[in-house]
C-alpha cells in the first residue's frame, strides 16, 4: 500500500507503469486519475487545502477498508494539495488484483470514500473571485452503495 499526499505534480503514466510492473499473481490493474476540469472555460485555478496528519491517516484507513473488502494485491493513492490549474492532475488511485471485479470495485470504493471522507477542500478562482466548492449530495449518496459500513 502506497499513500502519498504531496504538493508536487506526479507523473500519471510513470505511476501506472510502475504500479503494474513486476507483479506475478495479478491479472487486473485499474487506475483512476482526477483532472482539474474547466467546465465553462472560466476557471483560473483551484486551491486544494488539506489537514496534514489526518489526511494520510484517513486515506490509509480507506485503503485498509478496501483491502478487507476485496482481494487486493496492492493499492496506491496519490493526492495533491496547493494550487492547480485546469487540465492538471489532482490525484490518482490504482488497484491490483487477481480478478477484474475486485480491482474495479476497490478503485470505485476508494474514489467514493476519499471524495467525502478524506480532509481535502477545494477553492475555485475565476475572474469574479474565489469560492469554496460545495460538497455534492450525489457524492454523499454514492457512499450508500458500499452499505456494509457506510
Amino acid at each position, binding site marked *: 500500500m502506497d499513500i502519498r499526499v504531496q504538493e508536487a505534480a506526479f507523473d500519471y503514466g510513470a505511476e501506472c507503469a510502475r504500479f503494474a510492473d513486476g507483479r506475478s499473481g495479478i491479472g487486473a490493474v485499474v487506475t483512476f486519475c482526477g483532472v482539474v476540469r474547466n467546465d465553462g472555460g472560466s476557471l483560473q485555478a483551484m486551491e486544494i487545502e488539506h489537514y496534514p*496528519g*489526518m489526511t494520510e491517516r484517513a486515506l490509509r484507513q480507506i485503503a485498509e477498508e478496501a483491502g478487507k473488502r476485496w482481494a487486493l494485491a496492492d493499492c496506491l493513492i496519490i493526492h495533491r494539495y496547493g494550487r492547480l490549474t485546469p487540465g492538471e492532475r489532482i*490525484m490518482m488511485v490504482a488497484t491490483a488484483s487477481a480478478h477484474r471485479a475486485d480491482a474495479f470495485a476497490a478503485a470505485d470504493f476508494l474514489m467514493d470514500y476519499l471524495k*467525502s471522507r478524506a480532509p481535502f477542500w477545494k477553492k475555485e478562482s475565476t475572474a469574479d473571485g474565489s469560492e469554496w466548492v*460545495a460538497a455534492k449530495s450525489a457524492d454523499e449518496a454514492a457512499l450508500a452503495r458500499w452499505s456494509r459500513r457506510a
Partner: protein
Amino acid sequence: MTLEILYFAWLRERVGLPRETVTTEAATVDELVRELSAREERYALAFSDLSAVRVALDQDLADFDASLAGVREVAFFPPMTGG
C-alpha cells in the same frame, strides 16, 4: 483542559485563524462550540449552521455529541471535497 483547535477552508476564513490553543471545561464538542460562539461574533458566524460543519477529534471524524475526555486536537471544517 487544554485543546488545540484547528479550522479549515471557510471555517478558517471566518474564524480568522488556522489554529489556536484553548483552555476549556467543555465536556462535549457541542459545549465547546457553544463556548466559542459565545466568545466572539466571528465564531458565532462560523458555527451558525452546524449542518455544514464537520468535526474531527484527534484526527478521526466524530459527532457533535462526542465527549472531549482525553482529546488533544479538535478540528472543524466543512464537508470534504477531495478527489
